[in-house]
């Protein structure tokens, strides 16, 4: 009883100390449990990593669990990012959320509006945790109004994958991959190969229909996706991609498919990857997170090259790539002891040694710059220099609202709507402008509904 009173007293003192503090920073610290709270003995972590990446994740957790005896983290694989979010949504409704959860990049606004999260900034401020060494692009993506809501965990970005052997075969320089829309179209025309009967046996370029790739193309075009600073200055009220830049992207894509030098794998991202592996396509665009998988499957049959993500011929200076991947959220509905334990784990996961190992095990790049100096990371970059393309692209991208990426509550729906938009253009059901306008109108109505339902 006395011990309890003692702690209670300490808590009130700490609380009052925090309560009356100066504005601009330590306000959020009050949202975190007090430093003296003993972390819980076990917590659960819901994630969406499987296969090689799942193994790597479990390795990190095993390392944490064996490095100390106070806290044990239990991981549960909940399917892919979409399934996990749906599961989390249902769990929140019945108070069954776990302490720590991995949610993808576009789930940001949803998590923020759910008011179920303890912002990471709270812990950072409370412990004066140093984030100077963190990759700026990554940190900026997960901040909302200058406060970090979650801790980035697996960071990726898309790039151009190309078949160096095929390049040599048709007289293209394998060391200089195409970068602009026109360069890619020209290269694709050269790389497309037909057999005696006229069937195409190899297409030059085979991008899958994926909203994320379109978002990235808008970013490299130096364009906003949504208003109000991409939804980061204030809540987004509409999407704005039905402009000349959006049209240029769709026109380029359609010309390629109609011209027979772009392959259309539909919405099947795995199919696009398989087509590249099977040398049915000589180039395609996808996340750096697939690099490890490609190297393993291709098994030396051909030389894999990676290049910068496509951009318009004018190569706008404000254009660059947005980071992708997922981040970790600490859930408010759990007791403070569990929140504390979750934070302990997060700190561990951000140490350079762990980040370096994570990078070499997966293909995601480290959040902490010091990780690049660790052994596994150095080994990795020497063995697979292709990986450096992604991090170079991110570091060379200017940091602005366009490259920070859009934050909208209905982002998952928006992404799927873009899929439909691209499909309708490629199938010839609508002109680029009409398809863009239709998508924008529909999404604006959805955003409106969302904003009204979540005041």
């Amino acid at each position, binding site marked *: 009883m006395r011990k309890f009173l003692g702690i209670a007293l300490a808590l009130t003192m700490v609380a009052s100390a925090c309560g009356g503090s100066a504005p601009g920073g330590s306000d959020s610290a009050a949202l975190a449990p007090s430093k003296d709270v003993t972390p819980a003995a076990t917590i659960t972590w819901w994630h969406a990593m*499987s*296969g090689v990446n799942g193994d790597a994740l479990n390795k990190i957790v095993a390392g944490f669990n064996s490095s100390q005896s106070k806290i044990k983290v239990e991981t*549960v694989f909940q399917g892919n990012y979409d399934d996990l979010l749906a599961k989390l949504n249902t769990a929140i409704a019945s108070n069954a959320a776990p302490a720590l959860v991995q949610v993808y990049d576009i789930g940001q606004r949803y998590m923020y509006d759910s008011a179920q999260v303890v912002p990471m900034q709270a812990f950072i401020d409370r412990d004066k945790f140093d984030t100077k060494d963190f990759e700026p692009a990554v940190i900026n993506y997960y901040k909302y109004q200058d406060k970090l809501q979650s801790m980035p965990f697996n960071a990726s970005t898309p790039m151009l994958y190309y078949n160096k052997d095929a390049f040599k075969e048709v007289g293209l320089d394998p060391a200089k991959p195409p970068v602009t829309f026109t360069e890619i179209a020209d290269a694709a025309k050269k790389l497309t190969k037909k057999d005696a009967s006229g069937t195409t046996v190899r297409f030059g370029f085979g991008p899958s229909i994926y909203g994320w790739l379109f978002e990235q193309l808008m970013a490299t075009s130096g364009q906003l996706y949504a208003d109000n600073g991409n939804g980061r200055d204030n809540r987004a009220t509409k999407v704005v991609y039905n402009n000349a830049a959006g049209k240029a992207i769709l026109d380029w894509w359609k010309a390629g498919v109609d011209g027979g030098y772009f392959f259309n794998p539909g919405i099947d991202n*795995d*199919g696009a990857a398989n087509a590249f592996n*099977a040398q049915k396509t000589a180039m395609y665009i996808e996340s750096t997170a697939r690099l490890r998988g490609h190297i393993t499957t291709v098994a030396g049959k051909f030389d894999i090259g990676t290049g910068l993500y496509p951009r318009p011929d004018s190569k706008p200076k404000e254009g660059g790539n947005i980071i992708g991947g997922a981040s970790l959220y600490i859930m408010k509905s759990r007791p403070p002891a569990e929140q504390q334990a979750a934070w302990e784990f997060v700190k561990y996961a951000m140490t350079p040694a762990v980040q370096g190992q994570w990078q070499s095990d997966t293909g995601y790049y480290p959040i902490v710059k010091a990780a690049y100096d660790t052994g596994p990371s150095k080994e990795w970059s020497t063995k697979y220099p292709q990986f450096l393309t992604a991090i170079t692209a991110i570091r060379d991208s200017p940091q602005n609202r366009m490259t920070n990426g859009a934050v909208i509550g209905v982002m998952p729906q928006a992404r799927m709507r873009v899929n439909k938009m691209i499909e309708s253009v490629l199938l010839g059901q609508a002109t680029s402008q009409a398809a863009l306008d239709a998508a924008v109108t529909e999404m604006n109505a959805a955003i409106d509904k969302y904003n009204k339902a979540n005041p």
Partner: protein
Amino acid sequence: MSVRLVLTYALLVVGSIIVAFPLLIALSYSLMSESEIATFPPPLLTTRPTLNNYADVLDTIPIGRYLLNSFIVSTAVVAGQLITASLAAYAFSFLVFRGRQALFFVFLSTLMIPWEATIIPNYMTIRTIGWLDTYQGLAVPFMATAFGTFLLRQAFLQIPRELWDAARIDGASSFRFLVSTVIPLSRPILGTVAIYGFLSTYNQYFWPLLITNQTLMRTTQVGIAQLRFEETLRFGLVMAGVVMVAVPTLALLVLGQRQLVRGLTAGAVKG
């Protein structure tokens, strides 16, 4: 051998291969390595068969545990269904009471209600009574079956009325008659209901996905879905998982196929 016979057999062989073709392909691909699959044009048969995919499945997911879970839950559901459906079908065939017709339509209506309309509230209920991650949570909601009730009702209606009359004269209670006469006479159709119930529970995906958070409580269909990774789709691995999960049900079919047909012939679909 007459030409007609040869032709008939030929037709049957071709037909069977076409129907079973997807399963044969699944088997074939489960024995291929990823690099072999990633070739164009796509291969049909493997030149270098490997059991690696099966080993990988065992490494990736605790499939033994999943099979056990599915088996336990399916058996529980079947037991529950046989009891509830027999009682209900009996009431609809032998007992006379006012409101019987209306109650029958109530049963019928449950067949038409789409699962999306009930799944969220059901999740909340299961969560409230603490049945998440439990066998009860996976089994109890499915222990009543309108479909099974109808099948049994049709079969019960075929039982000669004289037996019923004789039993009544002897003073036997209605329950006695059910247990000592009706059930033994309906073994084929009960077998059919059991097999149907087992298969449909075993093949469930969305409900187990929703209410199990712990890996160890998951069932087979959720398990093989976990073989589809976020960054790559390894068809060889997925097909190996598919084969491992389908084998028990195929075995059940081989054993129970004659049963199923006999049960359905016993009046269920004659009206």
